[in-house]
């Protein structure tokens, strides 16, 4: 009797697994074809010399060795990408400040929200065009504004020193994307917490520091991780606006990778770069994860 029950249960469990797998099969098949196979293939290709027209030739660690010895492009591209990480804290603070401003009971708040979010909707190509002109040293909007304040405007994208800050400025314009996420999180903070804090005599700054920020820390964490991943993959803007110039100052990692793959057809080198990128992303994400225990607070978690 017990064994019959057992086998019936086993059969039912098997059936539930099969049903589950069938339901997720569109994703599962896609995962095998468009993720798992390419990941393995690119790992293999990264150890080969492969120029598309001739079959891949095994070179062991050759591509990696060449990249690590490449002080003209590879290392500078990594350094330039690292510079763009400056943007993460800036956009985090800006997004958060905007969200805090919008989290008030004011008339017409939806209009402000729409306007501040609008830049995130402009397609990357169009915003690249638009900022090319906005950042134009002579006729652009930014320098006209600086001129009005009697500040001499820098040459922005025309100068190796200012091209990266120019791109950071442009990206901060899109801080509304993060803002919407913060805003939703702010509106989910229980009012009871604020009331309790007010009873304890907490002032506005203390409420922000000890109630608001801990409550929305999981969302800050989420945005930070996505920001890290996105920064490593910064591509469209530099491709359109500077093609990596001037003087390779915006030849970011993802752009140099693209050039290797689709302009020089050095697929082996490009795959090696992709894997280095993958490992760097994982390390960076891991660092954020490891430190998160100290500053991310999850509701319902014992402390």
């Amino acid at each position, binding site marked *: 009797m017990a064994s019959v029950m057992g086998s019936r249960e086993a059969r039912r469990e098997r059936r*539930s697994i099969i049903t*589950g*797998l069938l*339901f*997720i*099969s*569109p*994703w599962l098949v*896609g*995962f095998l074809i*468009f*993720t798992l196979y*390419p990941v393995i*293939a*690119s790992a293999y290709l990264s150890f080969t010399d492969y120029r*598309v027209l001739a079959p891949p030739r095994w070179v062991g660690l050759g591509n990696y060795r060449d990249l690590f010895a490449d002080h003209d492009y590879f290392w500078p591209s990594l350094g330039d990408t690292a510079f763009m990480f400056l943007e993460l804290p800036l956009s985090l603070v800006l997004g958060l400040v905007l969200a805090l*401003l919008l989290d*008030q*009971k004011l008339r017409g708040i939806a209009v402000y929200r*729409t*306007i501040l979010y*609008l*830049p995130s*909707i*402009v*397609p*990357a*190509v*169009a915003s690249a*065009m*638009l900022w090319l*002109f906005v950042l*134009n040293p*002579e*006729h652009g*909007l930014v320098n*006209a504004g600086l001129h009005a304040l009697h500040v001499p405007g820098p040459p922005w994208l025309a100068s190796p020193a200012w091209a990266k800050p120019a791109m950071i400025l442009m990206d901060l*314009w899109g801080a509304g994307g993060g803002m919407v*996420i913060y*805003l*939703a*999180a*702010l509106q*989910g903070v229980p009012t009871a917490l604020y009331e309790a804090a007010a009873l304890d005599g907490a002032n*506005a700054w203390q409420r922000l520091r000890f109630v608001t920020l801990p409550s929305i820390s*999981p969302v800050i964490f*989420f*945005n930070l*991780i996505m920001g890290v991943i996105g920064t490593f993959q910064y591509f469209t803007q530099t*491709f*359109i606006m500077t093609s990596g110039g001037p003087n390779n100052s915006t030849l970011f990692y993802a752009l140099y*990778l*693209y050039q290797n*793959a*689709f302009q020089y057809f050095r*697929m082996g080198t490009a*795959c090696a770069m992709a*894997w280095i*990128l993958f490992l760097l*992303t994982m390390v960076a994400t891991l660092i954020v994860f490891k430190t998160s225990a100290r500053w991310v607070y999850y509701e319902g978690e014992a402390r």
Partner: protein
Amino acid sequence: MKKSITPILGHVVLIALSLLFLAPVLFMISTSLKADNQIYTSNIQWIPNPPVWHNYPAALAYFPFWLYLRNTLIICVGTVIGTVFSAALPAYGFARLKWRGRNAMFILMIATIMLPSQVTLMPVFLLFRSLGWTGSFLPLIVPSFFGNAFSIFLLRQFFLGIPQELSDAARIDGCNELGILVRIILPLAKPALATVALFSFMGAWTDFQGPLIYLHDSHQYTLAIGLQSFLGRHGGEWNLLMAASTVVTLPLIAAFFFAQRTFIQGIAMTGVKG
């Protein structure tokens, strides 16, 4: 925080910020309506006098706008159909069915969101190349039929919120899981489906790297690629470039205004509930 800032101060700060954020877009539209000699002035003229409406037909004539629009729409519609269909089934499997291995699969799927696209870019390109699909829309549309992790996640979050009793009642009535999905869950999930459709439409409309890699014949270009090649050919003509950029941007802004609630709720949903 709700009442910490006096209303007037709040309005003043928000109006200033709104003007700051809006300025580049207004500058784009204003430039798109200027005559050549009005662009290169030292003082910015916000309202072109007189507005040169002719810049728009001129810009559209410079690149085959209607052809690029058609190409873009084909890719967008294909992507939306593929994404919505292939997200609903897995989302149901992850949210409403209990089976061993489900959580492991779900974690695997979430992990793929963090995988840099560059890792798969070259092998996928080589795969499509060996199929002879490069130079066609297929590499841009077909992958969307195989479940996009982000869309599945979004739908799953929504499905989780639908009361379990509805499914139980249907099961007692002899409805199978597919029937429950189609007859009960999907009709209730219309807002979430709309969000997924909207996101995938906007993603396909703005996609740059995909068309750049796969479309080589200028007859197949999308608006995004067409706009970029416009820059290459008419770099100095800012009024026409801005007119073209405005035309590429406006449909998205319009879509956003129509579906603002859907949109913002969708973003909030993915960001907040882990």
